[in-house]
C-alpha cells in the first residue's frame, strides 16, 4: 500500500530542505566552510570506498569465472563465437590503428635521427617502441575498449531486461554462460590482434622509411628484426594477454553491475571506457616494471 504523499511528520514549517535537525527555520546561519570540508572528505571517502568495492567485485567475478569456467562443458562454441565477434570483427580497426601508429612513429623518429645523420638507425629505434609498448597499449586502449564496451552494453541490456536472472532461474550459471566465453575470447583475441598489429605497424614504418627518408624498405626490415629478441615478443604478447583479460573482465563486470534503466546501460558503458583505459595503463606500468630488468 502506498504511503500518503503528504508530509508524514506533520511538520507545520514544511521545511523543503528536509533538514533532519529541524534547524531550518529561525536557526542561526552557519558558516559554509566546515560543512563544505566535511562534504569533501565524505565524497573522497565514498569514492575510495566505491573504488575498493569495485576492485573487489572485479576480483570476485574473475575468481568465479576461473573456477567455474573450465568445468565441462567448456562452451567451445560460445568461445569461438565470441572470438569471431571480438577478434575477427576488430581486424579492420586494428589494421588501421597499427598502420598509422607505425607510420607516425617512424616519421617522428626519422626527423629526429636525420638531424644527427643517423636515419639508417630508424629500424632499430622504432622496433622496440612499437613492439614492446605502442602496439599492445594503443590496441588495448582502442580495440580493448571497443570489446569491453560491447560486452557492457550487451550484458547491461540483458541485466535490465532480466535475461541474466532468467539464465539463473533456468538453472544455468550466468558466469559460466556469459562471462567465461567473453573472458577467454578477449584473452585469445587480443594477443592475436597485437601480433597482427606488430606486422602492420612494421609495414607502416617501412613505407615511411622508404618514401620519406630514402632508407630502403629491406634495410629497414633487417634492422627492425635484428633489434628484436624473443623476450620482446613475449613482453608484447604478455601485455596483450593481460590487457585482453582486463578488457574482458571489466566489460563483463560493468554489464553485470548495471543498474536498472536504459540510462544506466549508457552510464555503465561510459564508465567502462574510463575503467579499461586506466586499468590498461596501470597494468602496462606494472608489466613494464616487471619486464625491463629481465630485458
Amino acid at each position: 500500500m502506498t504511503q500518503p504523499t503528504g508530509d508524514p511528520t506533520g511538520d507545520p514549517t514544511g521545511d523543503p530542505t528536509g533538514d533532519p535537525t529541524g534547524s531550518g527555520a529561525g536557526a542561526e546561519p552557519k558558516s559554509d566552510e566546515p560543512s563544505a570540508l566535511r562534504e569533501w572528505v565524505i565524497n573522497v571517502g565514498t569514492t575510495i570506498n566505491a573504488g575498493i568495492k569495485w576492485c573487489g567485485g572485479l576480483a570476485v567475478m574473475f575468481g568465479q569465472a576461473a573456477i567455474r569456467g573450465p568445468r565441462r562443458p567448456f562452451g567451445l562454441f560460445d568461445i569461438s563465437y565470441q572470438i569471431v565477434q571480438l577478434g575477427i570483427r576488430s581486424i579492420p580497426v586494428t589494421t588501421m590503428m597499427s598502420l598509422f601508429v607505425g607510420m607516425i612513429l617512424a616519421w617522428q623518429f626519422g626527423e629526429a635521427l636525420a638531424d644527427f645523420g643517423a636515419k639508417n638507425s630508424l629500424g632499430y629505434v622504432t622496433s622496440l617502441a612499437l613492439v614492446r609498448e605502442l602496439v599492445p597499449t594503443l590496441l588495448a586502449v582502442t580495440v580493448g575498449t571497443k570489446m569491453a564496451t560491447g560486452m557492457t552494453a550487451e550484458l547491461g541490456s540483458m541485466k535490465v531486461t532480466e535475461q541474466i536472472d532468467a539464465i539463473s532461474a533456468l538453472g544455468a550459471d550466468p558466469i559460466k554462460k556469459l562471462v567465461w566465453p567473453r573472458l577467454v575470447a578477449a584473452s585469445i583475441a587480443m594477443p592475436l590482434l597485437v601480433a597482427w598489429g606488430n606486422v602492420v605497424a612494421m609495414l607502416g614504418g617501412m613505407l615511411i622509411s622508404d618514401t620519406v627518408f630514402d632508407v630502403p624498405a629491406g634495410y629497414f626490415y633487417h634492422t627492425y628484426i635484428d633489434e628484436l629478441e624473443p623476450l620482446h615478443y613475449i613482453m608484447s604478447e604478455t601485455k596483450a594477454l593481460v590487457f585482453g583479460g582486463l578488457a574482458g573482465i571489466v566489460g563483463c563486470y560493468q554489464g553485470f553491475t548495471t543498474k536498472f534503466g536504459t540510462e544506466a546501460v549508457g552510464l555503465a558503458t561510459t564508465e567502462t571506457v574510463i575503467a579499461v583505459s586506466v586499468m590498461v595503463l596501470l597494468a602496462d606500468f606494472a608489466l613494464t616494471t616487471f619486464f625491463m630488468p629481465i630485458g
Partner: protein
Amino acid sequence: MNDAKPSPVAGPASTQSGVLAGVSAMSNSSGVRRAIGTTIGQYHGRTCARGEPVIEFNAVDKAFGPNVIYRGMNLKVRLGETLTIIGGSGQGKSVCLKLMIGLLHAEGGQVCYYGEDVGRMNAEQLRELRMRVSMVFQGGALFDSMTIARNVGYALREHTDMGDAEINQRAAESLTLVGLGPDEYPEIMEQMPAVLSVGQRKRVALARSIAVRPEVILYDEPTTGLDPSNCNRIARMIRKLQRELGVTSIVVTHDMTTAWYVSDRVALLHNKQFPFVDDVPTFRAIDDPIVRDFIEGRTS
C-alpha cells in the same frame, strides 16, 4: 502466522483425482517430467500433500541498503493452489518471487522449500530447485540472440541429455500448451523474439518455464502491458496450466480482474508483511480500509 486460517484450495483441489490423472497422462506422454526428475509432492524423500505448505517464508527480513522490503514476513504457499500476491508498486512483490527461487537471499528468517532453507542451498541444490520452481519474468526475459525453439528448450538443453529433435518436440508441445503451437504458427520455432508481440513473448516465456514441467510456477506481473483480451488469454492460460500440469502457481499482479479469476487465495503486501491472506471470497469480503482501498483503487 499471517496466513494461519486454512482455506480449501478451490478449483483444482476439487478435481484432484482428475488433475493427477491429467498430470500422469502428461508425464507419460511427454516424458519430460521423468527426464528432469520432478515429481509433484515429492522432493528428496520428503512428501507434501495437496493443500499442505510447499513453500514457507518464516520471519523473513529483506532490505536493499536503507530500503527495508520485508520485516518479519511470514507466508505459506500450499501445494496445488494459485496464490496471488497484490500490493503497491515498489513494495517488493517481485522480491518475494526472487527469494523463493534463490535469486535473492533474505537477511533474516528462512525461505523454505519442502522445509529446506533456500538461502543455505549450494549451487547444485539451487539448480535442482530451479528445475522444479520456474519463473516467468515481467517482460518475458527471452534471450534475444536465440530462436523461439532454443529459448523454450534452453533448460532441457542445459540439464538433460535429450537430443535436438526430442528437445524441439518438447518445445513444440510447450508452445502448443500456451496456444502458440507450430500447427497454428508454422514459423514460430525459427523466429527470433524480436518479431513477436508483447503478449506472444509472454506466452513464449510461459512455454519456456513449463518446458521442464515444474512443480511451481512464479508469474511476475504476467498481464502488465497487455490489452484486455491478452490479459484474459494469459489468465486462462494460468488456470489451464494449473489444471493440466497440476502446478502450484504464485502470481504477482496489480490487475485485480486477473487476480480474482486465477486465484485460490490472495495475499496483500502491506507495511513489509502480508497481513491479509485469504481465499478469494473471504478476501473480497474483508472490511479493512487497507484492503478496500487497494482492491477498489481508492487513493484515500
